[in-house]
């Protein structure tokens, strides 16, 4: 179906979705919500979402983000263990475990969004502790104020090291960070001049890293007058950021990017849809939680304009399988596989983060994805051991081979697959059952379907 977003009435689009006979609150919509607002979910999570209204389900995802104390302790222990190794690559394994296990899924999804937005690479920073502290900062602000987040990120040692601003001196202002604040963090391309970048860079002079902590060196700060985006004054760094945040294009830039992250990859969201949310976003003081709540509970989100209109990132792809089948795996091996697939956490490809969308898919990554699923289902670690998938399905009352296939499709695939493909899967499942498993074969076959890569 062609997307005609320009023709959509914004009032209808952002109104809260109410299930109806034509559009019932069912497995498909609940799984859609869990795929976008979380990293997928198992049957239990689907049932929990279906037990309440869509709006209530979204509210819980946005606001009920507290982790159980036992999990908090476990995650703390894991972080200590990983930090002790001193290797930032191990931090990726820690985050993968967290992404898979935490019930605060939306907060993690937003932390991942900010990680791509304020892209910082451990390959350059090299210090595991600084990367960890930045990740915690992003998590703290994940669903909070964007304004506070930008201010804190601007003083984050990992970010300043990554953008070469660790020693920003008045005689030689470093423009990297100032440029990214406008181009990548707040405004977007073409909405500022080169002069604005130079002047904003002067605001950040004297911002340094000493002993791995932010320090303001007043002797190296340029306290002269600066002209930024039409405002003139002896601005410091904080004031400079506030001037950028005041720009009309700032909330639009963020809302459009969040729409592409949560709703659809293409096309570019039209202004008519962006503007109402942008207005409210600014009015709320850049509070992210209400903005996300509104997006995810909207008619637009549950419409065909959004259903299966995103390509799953490698992370969404693999966590969707693991969480859907209530499985665990070797987080270190998974990290390495995600690296091959182009989404190594803490190692974004460049300062722009991951492109996403169609960039995730090409002939080699499709093959690599299928191979990854093969490895997951073949390995003896975690819960993908032989026969366990069937045992899991049996626990949910699945009796026949066709029920097993439909159960897997409901959990793992965003759109109905062709009847012929379904029939082949049933045949494969029957053959697998006849020889006593392993049922990972079926999941692997499922993962080779084009539909499987849509989120």
């Amino acid at each position, binding site marked *: 179906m062609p997307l005609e977003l320009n023709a959509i009435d914004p009032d209808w689009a952002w109104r809260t979705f109410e299930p109806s006979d034509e559009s019932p609150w069912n497995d498909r919509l609940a799984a859609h919500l869990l795929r976008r607002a979380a990293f997928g979910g198992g049957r239990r999570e689907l049932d929990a979402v279906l037990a309440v209204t869509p709006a209530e389900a979204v509210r819980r995802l946005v606001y009920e983000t507290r982790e159980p104390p*036992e999990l908090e302790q476990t995650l703390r222990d894991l972080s200590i*263990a990983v930090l002790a190794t001193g290797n930032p690559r191990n931090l990726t394994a820690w985050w993968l475990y967290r992404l898979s296990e935490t019930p605060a899924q939306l907060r993690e999804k937003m932390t991942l969004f900010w990680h791509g937005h304020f892209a910082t690479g451990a390959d350059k920073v090299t210090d595991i502790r600084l990367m960890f502290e930045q990740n915690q900062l992003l998590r703290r602000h994940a669903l909070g104020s964007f304004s506070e987040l930008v201010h804190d990120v601007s003083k984050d040692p990992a970010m300043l090291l990554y953008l070469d601003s660790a020693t920003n001196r008045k005689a030689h202002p470093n423009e990297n960070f100032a440029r990214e604040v406008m181009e990548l963090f707040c405004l977007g391309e073409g909405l500022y001049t080169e002069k604005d970048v130079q002047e904003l860079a002067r605001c950040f002079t004297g911002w340094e890293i000493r002993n791995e902590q932010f320090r303001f060196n007043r002797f190296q700060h340029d306290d002269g007058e600066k002209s930024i985006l039409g405002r003139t004054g002896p601005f410091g760094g904080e004031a400079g950021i506030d001037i950028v945040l005041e720009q009309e294009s700032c909330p639009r830039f963020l809302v459009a990017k969040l729409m592409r992250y949560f709703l659809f990859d293409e096309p570019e969201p039209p202004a008519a849809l962006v503007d109402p949310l942008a207005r409210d976003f600014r009015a709320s003081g850049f509070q992210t939680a209400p903005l996300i709540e509104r997006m995810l509970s909207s008619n637009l989100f549950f419409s065909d304009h959004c259903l299966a209109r995103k390509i799953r990132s490698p992370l969404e792809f693999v966590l969707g399988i693991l969480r859907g089948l209530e499985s665990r795996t*070797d987080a270190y091996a998974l990290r390495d596989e995600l690296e091959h697939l182009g989404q190594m956490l803490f190692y974004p490809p460049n300062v722009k983060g991951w492109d996403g969308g169609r960039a995730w898919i090409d002939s080699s990554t499709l093959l690599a994805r299928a191979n990854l699923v093969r490895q997951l289902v073949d390995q003896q670690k975690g819960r993908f051991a032989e026969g366990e998938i069937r045992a899991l399905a049996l626990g949910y009352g699945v009796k026949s081979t066709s029920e097993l296939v439909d159960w897997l499709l409901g959990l793992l695939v965003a759109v109905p697959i062709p009847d012929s493909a379904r029939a082949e899967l049933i045949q494969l499942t029957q053959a697998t059952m006849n020889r006593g498993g392993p049922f990972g074969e079926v999941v692997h076959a499922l993962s080779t379907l084009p539909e499987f890569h849509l989120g």
Partner: protein
Amino acid sequence: MSIGLLRRSLFAAAMLLSASTGALADKGKTFDSPARLLPATTVFYAEVPRPTEVIAAIYDHAIADRLRAAPEYKAALATPQAFVFNAGLKLVENRLGMTWREAVAALTAGGVAVAFDPATQGGALLIRARDEATLQQLRDSLLGIVRDETEKRGQEIPLKSAEYRGIPVQQLGDLKFALAGPWLIAVNKDELGRNILDRYLDGTPDSLAAHPQMLAAKEMLPSPVSGWVWANLQQLRHLGGVLPQTLQKTDNPVAELMIGGLLGTLGESPFALAAVDVNPNHLELSFLSPHKPAWIDPAREYYFGTKGTGRAPRLLDLEGTLLSLSAYRDLSAMWLRSGDLFVDRIDAGFAEANANLSTLFGGKDFGEDILGAFAPEMQLVVSRQSFDGAETIPAIRVPAFAAVFRLRESDSGRDEFRRMFVNLIGFLNIVGAMNGNPQMDLRTIAHSGTEIHTATFVRDRRDDALAASIHHNFSPSIAFTENRFVIASTTPLARQLVDRLASSNDGDAPSEENTSLKISFPAIARIVDDNRRQLIAQNMLAEGRNREDAERQIGLLIEGLSLLRDLEFRITADDQRASIRLKLSFEESSK
């Protein structure tokens, strides 16, 4: 084991026993050792005199009981393959009228041996049963099972029959079998089979048992012994290509340092012997061979001393020691003769290391001046750190380690080594600063009448509540006591060593060994326990387990370690023989 494998094993066992018995027991002589049946040209011989005792020692050991109680073992038994195997085994036991252990005990009561004779290119298996009647009964039962199985599939047993001097012989493929009295004899060459049966019937005196090398080997054999292997190296060398004439240059410096000397003299030794002793208290492996100081290559005098009389100092045994090693090694001689000992690539590495280390040690030649300052006796010790009262406790706790060397000249080296230590810490501080690592403070501590020069890592902001850096496992230290030089990874271990060396003269009295190593499993268990949280976390990440399962895995590891007491490794060499002994002792509670 699958049912297919069980079926194949049964078939082979039945074939072994299917050779005709004949009333031959009265014709044969009484032989107490299988070696008396083998020709003197045999070059390889292995014997297990009492297999039943070996099986009992392993199968009835408390460690085996613990393994059988483990959930993983029970889960393995619950698999369809295990179920089929056990059902098949039960069927066989029913047909035999005895358990598999009783059957093995009856079949092998007089021992089992295998041998290779190059003169005939034949291999032989000799099994002596409890008596002829038992052997026949087992043969009949197993053959019955195999016959039933093959008939079920509409096949016949592919067995050919013949006779040699009244002894019926049967053939399956290339294998020939004969039952001679209580003996079950299996060979792959007719000539060897005839040779063995001739000995059985005639009692020919020139058997392997009477071979001078075998007699010498028997003299050398430790007692008690559960099984042993003998190889005629002299003969094997003549065969060409089977054994190298002498040890080639090696590409493994650690292996050279540990056993290079022994391998070097093995090239001259007429035979080699390996023995194993299994009992509820320990498992001991021994490797022995004749040895003469004249066989020592000059390049490997670093290993034995010039007259082959080098002896290691006694092991250092401190509280919490998990590994202690003492050895006679002239490190300087080994370093300087690296060109004779190592392949070109490794030798080039030594040359490069020498140049780099010489720079670090103020222009002194590392091989000649630094290592040359040490007498050829070294002691290493690895020990658990308690961190009692420590201000900073690292997240990963690494054991402390130290080396003790005797100085050739007790006074001259001290200032030199102290200066080098200061230089080294300064160098590490500069490199550390470049890499964002913490810095070290240098101090000198007076202790037990001597000085300990030590460097301690400075606590920084990274050592927060989350986890102190791994650096805090280390406080490099050096000390001198009498003519000993101590270099330790931590100050507490340096203190312990200074006290230990000062309080006893044990360190001055050489041991009987050339090399001695002892590993303590309770100490390893405590170190694992110290790092339990770290290991559980890593297990969760690497194995995809939840916390409960990961905790159970690490608990099992610690429990497993608690069943073992220690592992000893000893190398001795005198003017008669050289030996390597490896002894694994079990804890009292595990027996």
